[in-house]
């Protein structure tokens, strides 16, 4: 906060009013409603609702289908996070290392960031198309008969590839700007002390990148959990039955296709708790182990 400030009885409230009004109507009201309706069973014909306690939660958590979707979500999130962070970091380290053409590589590598997830999904659908998809033909060279949209595992792999592809530029941008903020003196000292580039990466670069990397870890997990909705929605084309979906997609399916308001709200609240824990984890646990310069 500033040492010198204005003091006025009503002006700050006036300036805050628009933001607060929108947050109240579109954030707090729906969030409270989600929590509230997760304890009720809505009549399918719209005749009121009955209080059912925690049974929406136990129904959701106890169902075999929910558990398998939760398992897939964990695997999907882990793979998307790991792969996009790993590839992004590899490319950033290389772009930082080369002297010539660094900015050209940078330009060419970042712009995919601007492509919307469902648009990436649409392109993925065509690259994995049964008739015309080059990636399906490529897989066939190895005797792999890919059936994206029909085979559970094949669809999952295609979804992961598209989601990772879309997220690489984001990681690339952050890691590259993190790398470029390492002072030249530190680099030079490290180069004198240690000839092996690989070891320099592990003992100097990576620890200095740790804050960026941990920030990206959380961001990538949120991306995989929520922002991939567009990719999934386009790639499963409403036929979720035999296809892999994530927990967010199930909230959407149950709420809008299945009209199960209570069940969907309970799942929303479960997800809220997951996000909440992730964020607390980010603030409390992870930040303590990170070196800051």
């Amino acid at each position, binding site marked *: *906060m*500033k040492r010198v400030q*204005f003091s*006025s009885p009503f*002006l*700050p*409230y006036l*300036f*805050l009013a*628009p*933001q*607060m009004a929108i947050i109240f*109507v*579109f*954030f*707090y009201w*729906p*969030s409270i409603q989600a929590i509230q309706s997760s304890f009720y069973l809505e009549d399918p014909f719209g005749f009121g609702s009955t209080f059912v306690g925690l049974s929406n939660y136990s129904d959701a958590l106890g169902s075999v289908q929910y558990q398998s979707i939760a398992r897939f979500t964990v695997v999907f999130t882990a793979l998307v996070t790991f792969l996009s962070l790993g590839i992004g970091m*590899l*490319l950033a380290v*290389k772009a930082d*290392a*080369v002297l010539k053409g660094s900015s050209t*590589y940078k330009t060419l*590598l*970042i712009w995919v*960031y*601007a*492509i*919307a*997830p469902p*648009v990436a999904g*649409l*392109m993925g*659908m*065509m*690259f994995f198309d049964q008739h*015309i*998809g080059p990636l399906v*033909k490529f897989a066939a060279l190895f005797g792999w008969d890919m059936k994206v949209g029909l085979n559970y595992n094949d669809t999952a792999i295609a979804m992961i590839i598209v989601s990772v*592809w879309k997220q*690489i530029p984001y990681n690339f*941008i*952050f890691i590259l*700007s993190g790398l470029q903020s390492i002072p030249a003196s530190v680099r030079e000292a490290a180069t004198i002390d240690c000839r092996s580039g690989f070891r320099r990466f592990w003992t100097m670069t990576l620890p200095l990148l740790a804050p960026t990397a941990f*920030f990206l870890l959380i*961001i990538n997990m949120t991306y995989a959990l*929520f922002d991939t909705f567009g990719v999934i*929605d*386009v790639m499963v*084309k409403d036929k979720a039955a035999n296809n892999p979906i994530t927990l*967010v997609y199930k*909230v*959407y399916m149950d*709420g*809008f296709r299945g009209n199960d308001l209570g069940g969907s*709200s309970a799942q*929303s609240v479960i997800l*809220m708790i997951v996000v909440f824990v992730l*964020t607390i984890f980010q603030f409390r646990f992870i930040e303590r182990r990170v070196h800051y310069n």
Partner: protein
Amino acid sequence: MNRIRLFDHLVLMLGVFVMVAPVVVAFMTSTHDAADIHRNGLSLTWGGNFAETYNTVLTRKGGFTGEITGARMIWNSLILGVGFAAGKIVLSMLAAYAIVYFRFRLGTLFFWMIFTTLLLPLEVRIVPSYEVMNKLSLTNTYTGLIVPLLASATGTFFFRQFFKSVPEELLEAARIDGAGPFKFFIDVLVPLSRTMIAAIFIIMFVYGWNQYLWPTLMTTDERFFTLVRGIKQILLVWVGSNIPDYNEAFALAILAMLPPVMIVLIFQRWFIKGLTESDK
């Protein structure tokens, strides 16, 4: 040393190939006609059908009601992108100004209330949000499309961070010169924030243009479809048709990515600044 450089370049070129090739193929394929694509698959060469395909996509009335054209969807996407970005900047600058430059009792409480919105993304509260919009009868309106998306704190934090880095002396000097809160905001802070505003605008425009889930829920009336939201409809039309219009689907995908990609490329420096400084 040279051998290692070569290896670095090889890795980077492979990376560039993986990132760029799909889009190039998508664009080139969109210039072929549908039967050609059906026979020969995706293509890396110019098909010569460019004008025809893009003209159809932009001007032919389609959809279930037969009222929506590609051009209309682009217009709606622009409204969403620009409206969202502008709204975000105005709201968050005002809120950040109040939080940083005023001493008032509920300041800390408001700060935490705004902060909390970062914890729960829209995706986890879609059903109740939809219910609220229904109650307010805001479905199928531009207001309903844009305003609820503004209910998050990202921009506020960005400007709060920036205002805190503005030297104290500026306010002291301004107060000695007799400037009140409004004058200081408009004549000192806004001009100082110009690059910040540009950076945030780019990030937010791309974010708004690329919205998918919320427009999908809010707009059932095709006249309000954005380009990104319309993508799903395109795919649904495919199911059951003999020769799907691959060329048109690719053309729409290209149109949907063109404005945000152009903005990111042209304003690359501001874009990176906005991105790396706003999300932390």
